[in-house]
């Protein structure tokens, strides 16, 4: 429903300067400079979750969107909407988290805004961040750039963030190795692009709807088919256990510190080695490939040797997960 809201309604009202590729960030050209520009609003509930909080998420989310456009994030804006009565110590904790995450991401927050609304007029705290960065020379990554034969790579285990947030809901009181993966990806992505440049055709971080949704979006944007191997997809054991309990699938739960890369097949092996050994992405893996046939469809070969379609999720995605 969100997809239709955006494509059927919202896009009609936005300017038509060709920036409607529906990538995470817009690619702009201003006086000869190629710039990536992105914005996101964060409404996650609960505000504090295992492995992070709305602050670390707000910085990582926008920083990663800029990175997914092949750009080096430089500056962020930070806007807060606070519900009257939101505890000061919680706010300070979130601001400290924002400070630390920005330092890790090597970005500066240069402008912002804060509003306070009456009790009940906003739930706790909402945060918007917008960011800009310069696109690296020789790099052109886009969701519509994936080509038949490309290797599909994931930078680490999937579903962590979604599981961390869901585990706090529904009265289950789950304890254990659950932790959001929310983190800025600059230390992995920038060296990757620097080294492999044009061999990287597409980058996308699988947030809302998880890796399965992102794969479907790219299949449609690039008009290609994608096949993945279930056995190759890295999932944390504890996350699998939670998914089984709650009836979810890790492939459909958001990640906030992972990226999918579609790369020139001849470079795939080298890229995996690079990610695992030099970029801290120890579970990076080749999970599939792009095909010419069955354009727009994502299929998965299952553990049992069978196959199924990995469809777009239908209906309500989990509310307030980012």
């Amino acid at each position, binding site marked *: 429903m969100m997809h239709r809201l955006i494509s059927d309604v919202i896009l009609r009202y936005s300017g038509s300067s060709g920036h409607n590729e529906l990538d995470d960030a817009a690619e702009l050209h201003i006086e000869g400079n190629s710039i990536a520009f992105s914005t996101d609003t964060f409404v996650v509930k609960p505000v504090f979750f295992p492995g992070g909080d709305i602050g670390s998420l707000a910085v990582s989310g926008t920083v990663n969107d800029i990175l997914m456009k092949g750009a080096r994030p430089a500056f962020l804006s930070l806007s807060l909407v606070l519900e009257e009565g939101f505890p000061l110590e919680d706010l300070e904790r979130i601001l400290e988290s924002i400070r630390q995450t920005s330092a890790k991401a090597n970005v500066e927050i240069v402008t912002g805004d804060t509003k306070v609304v009456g009790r009940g007029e906003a739930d706790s705290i909402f945060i918007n961040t917008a960011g800009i960065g310069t696109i690296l020379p020789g790099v052109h990554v886009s969701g519509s750039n994936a080509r038949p034969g490309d290797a599909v790579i994931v930078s680490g285990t999937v579903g962590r963030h979604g599981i961390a947030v869901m585990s706090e809901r529904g*009265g289950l009181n789950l304890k254990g190795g659950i932790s959001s993966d929310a983190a800025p990806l600059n230390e992995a992505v920038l060296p990757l692009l620097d080294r492999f440049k044009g061999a990287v055709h597409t980058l996308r971080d699988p947030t809302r709807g998880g890796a399965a949704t992102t794969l479907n979006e790219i299949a449609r944007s690039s008009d290609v088919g994608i096949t993945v191997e279930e056995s190759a997809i890295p999932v944390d054991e504890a996350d699998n256990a939670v998914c089984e309990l709650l009836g979810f699938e890790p492939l459909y739960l958001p990640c906030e510190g992972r990226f999918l890369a579609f790369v020139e097949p001849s470079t795939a092996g080298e890229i995996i080695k690079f990610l695992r050994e030099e970029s801290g992405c120890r579970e990076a893996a080749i999970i599939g490939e792009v095909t010419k046939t069955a354009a727009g469809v994502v299929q998965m070969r299952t553990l049992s040797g069978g196959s199924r379609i990995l469809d777009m999720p239908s209906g309500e995605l989990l509310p307030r997960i980012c």
Partner: protein
Amino acid sequence: MNGNILKKLREPELIRRLCDRLSKLDVPEKVKIMEVCGTHTMAIHRMGLPPLLPPHIRLLSGPGCPVCVTPGSYLDTAFEMAGEYGITLVTFGDMMRVPGSKDTLSLLRSRGYAVEVVYSPMAALELALENPGRDFVFLAVGFETTAPAVAATVIAARRKNAGNFSILCSHKLVIPALEVLVDDPEAAVDGFMLPGHVSAVLGSEPYRFIPDKYSRACVITGFEPYDIVHGIFMLLAQIESGEFSVEIQYSRGVRPQGNERARECMFEVFTPVDTVWRGFGTIPGSGLAVADDFAGFDAGVRYPVKTEPFPEPEGCRCGEVLRGIIEPPDCPLFEAVCAPGNPVGPCMVSSEGTCAAFYRYSRSFDTR
């Protein structure tokens, strides 16, 4: 050490070899197997089994999806209660998108009604205990796997004097539906893959009429991929030999006598009643209602409302799908009009519904 056995059972190499054996089986004549339970339908599709089945085996889905068979009027009743009495509705997640005649719980929530999702009925009780100023109604849906848990929760609610907690009961019993199914000449299946967790409660005895009176194969099956393949092998063996019985594949979880304590709990709080199944109409003795003793926890009694009769959607053939008479692509609405994003009937609404599972995992697609 014990947990190792469960891990070994799940090894990918084992399931791959089992599926390979299955796919190479020579099945001489057409065989129709019905998996009764929605969880089996989902598991079968998620493991990617349909493309692996040898040509003569057909798997049909049955009515064991509680969300699918819950009448739309149940939701209308819940919405009326929320509107008229200002109660908070508490529900399992898979009920959120089921359409009543006008609304879904999800839409209601977005309009400011109080709707909470929980994974356990006990969590619903806890919400009530933590919020004494509000009234909570738990939407009690599900078969004999879930009904004992809800019953235990109601017993706990009485013990803790949770005067602001009640349930709107729409629990259903599997056996009466099976009696209707197996008696239906149109729904001629050769064997039944019986639900593992319902059977953990019921045991194997209550299913005896199926092989004894109707000469069909029965295997109580677990939900892991290896369970499902094992169950299919056992069903085929019965069908081939012509010797029918109720076998327990899921022997690690199901005893022939079932779980008596769970049954006692269930029948302390609930009594069997006639009830409507979406797609089947009324089946005698097939549902549960709150017993008089616990009337204080029956939302239907505490918050009376009037609801209109629920109109079945036009052209919808869910009834035939639920009885295994047709498959999803045989319904003219399938895919063209009725899809997970825009479900018409119950088989598409629930994520465990036959049509939803087929659409999401197995539908054919054009190569462009």
